[in-house]
């Protein structure tokens, strides 16, 4: 009876209507702010937060739900951004085609990397994605004739008003979360979580683990590419800094803070980290110290993150006592 009983901590709900509802309410609450006089500068901060929320949500699909550790969310965002930028610069292709192309190229690259590495378990994905992200960034940096290196490529704006981007990112994050909630409610959601919980057990009970891991990685890569391509036409200049590894680190800290493996966590984490880093910036360049410390503290003392911790508090109040009660009787009976 000793096995595994140690883990009495209640895992957080991976998704629920409540979490989706709260996320959509948060987005709905953000929506009217520009008309209520939110400054352009702060609109920009929210837009960037929502862009990070897209990356964080996609990284969470891998790390939080499937147990895959990718180091390339920023790398894929940069790839998606460059696809639309290069198409525009060298073929005059409209962003309306360039943006989905960025997503598709990233999905295809994700599919290939997934097929090559996800048959193996272990650190291969982390190492391969790390290499990929850095190689892509170095290529973008050094192919000056094509990418203009650090200076970057100019791309056309989609809208003339900042607030239009603001609404676009709200809609994008909303759609992403609705889609993810839908996906997690399908058998696929169970398979992904089963893989994270016990991949060998899942395989032995018939789950096509390789297929579903590749599937998750492909989707996640594609949507990171989409986020990057959308962001490209907001910042209007596509440079290698989009793909910097520090961005991936920031995205990871958002997920850890908000709650790994919860639907709402990445959005909460992205807003908290990005908005508060604006304040930290005012106080000096402390953000590079503060966020790693927060991540370490959360990883040690609050592994379920903010959303996870709150969900646990609600779970703990509901319906657990029944199970706990009969467990006590069983222990008594056998002693």
């Amino acid at each position, binding site marked *: *009876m*000793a*096995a*595994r*009983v140690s*883990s*009495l*901590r*209640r*895992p957080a709900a991976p998704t629920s209507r409540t979490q989706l509802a709260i996320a959509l309410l948060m987005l709905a609450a953000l929506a009217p702010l520009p008309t209520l006089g939110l400054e352009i500068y702060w609109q920009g901060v929210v837009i960037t937060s929502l862009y990070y929320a897209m990356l964080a949500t996609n990284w969470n699909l891998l790390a939080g739900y499937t147990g895959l550790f990718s180091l390339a969310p920023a790398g894929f965002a940069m790839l998606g951004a460059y696809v639309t930028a290069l198409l525009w610069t060298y073929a005059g292709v409209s962003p309306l085609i360039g943006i989905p192309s960025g997503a598709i190229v990233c999905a295809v690259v994700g599919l290939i990397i997934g097929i090559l590495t996800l048959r193996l378990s272990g650190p291969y994905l982390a190492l391969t994605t790390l290499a990929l992200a850095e190689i892509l960034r170095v290529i973008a940096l050094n192919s000056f004739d094509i990418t203009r290196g650090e200076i970057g490529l100019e791309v056309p704006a989609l809208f003339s008003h900042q607030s239009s981007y603001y609404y676009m990112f709200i809609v994008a994050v909303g759609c992403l979360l609705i889609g993810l909630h839908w996906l997690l409610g399908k*058998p696929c959601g*169970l*398979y992904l*979580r*089963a893989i*994270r*919980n*016990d991949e*060998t*057990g*899942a*395989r*032995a*009970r*018939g*789950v*096509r*683990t*390789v297929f579903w891991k590749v599937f998750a990685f492909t989707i996640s890569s594609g949507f990171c590419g989409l986020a990057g391509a959308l962001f490209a036409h907001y910042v209007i200049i596509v440079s290698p800094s989009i793909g910097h590894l520090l961005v991936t680190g920031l995205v990871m800290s958002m997920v850890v803070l908000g709650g790994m*493996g919860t639907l709402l966590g990445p959005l909460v984490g992205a807003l908290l980290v990005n908005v508060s880093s604006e304040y930290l910036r005012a106080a000096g360049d402390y953000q590079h110290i503060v966020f790693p410390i927060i991540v370490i503290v959360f990883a040690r003392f609050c592994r379920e993150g903010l959303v996870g911790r709150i969900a646990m508090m609600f779970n703990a109040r509901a*319906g*657990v006592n*029944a*199970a*706990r009660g*009969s*467990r006590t009787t*069983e*222990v008594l*009976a*056998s002693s």
Partner: protein
Amino acid sequence: MSDLIVVEDLTKRFGSLVAVDGVSFTIGEGELVGFLGPNGSGKTTVLNMMSGLLRPDAGRISLSGANVGGMTADRIARAGMIRMFQLTRIYPEMTVIENLLTAGFALGLDKRQATERADELLADLKILAYREAFASDLSGGQQKLLEFACCFMKAPKIALLDEPFAAIHPTMRQTLADYVRGTNAAGQAYILVSHDMPIVIDLCPRAICLAAGSVLADGPTDEVLREPAVIEAYLGPNHS
């Protein structure tokens, strides 16, 4: 009786250790076979190879006449050979019902079929009260029952059970044994690895005894247990 499982010359080495050394046996439809042998005799390793989790160094395994040698573990499971682990492998951060549904969906059941079957199993194994609990909150024994139930979401051709009775309470053990006996009477085939002699004698008409990676004896359980070589393997050479 037609052959459900044919294992020929199965061999596995770990470095210089020959964990399984030319094991052969056949199992017919609907048979319930006990797998005996001292610790480290290779029982789990044989099961690992049969379920596709470990690649044999040599030998063949077939299920209903089809070679399962090069198949992935998940394909073997979907082909109807499913196994339960000696050290429980459930999904701790998922609820009991989610654990069962995952197994059901993976084997091709739809939502209604899977839910009905899961509730039926939970009732049969007397853990229905834990339906919505997280698997990590079950006791060790209850976790074993859950993993056991996962194997039967869709009746397999054969279930390979590795020590299902170890470390579980006598009443639960009885519940499990009753389930095995009942389903076997209805034609379910099993390989049952166990150190629990009374249960093996009670449940299994036939037993295979492994020692140091080889089949020491294979036949009716009472005869296998009377074999001097088996007694020696279990109790040591100086036993008289």
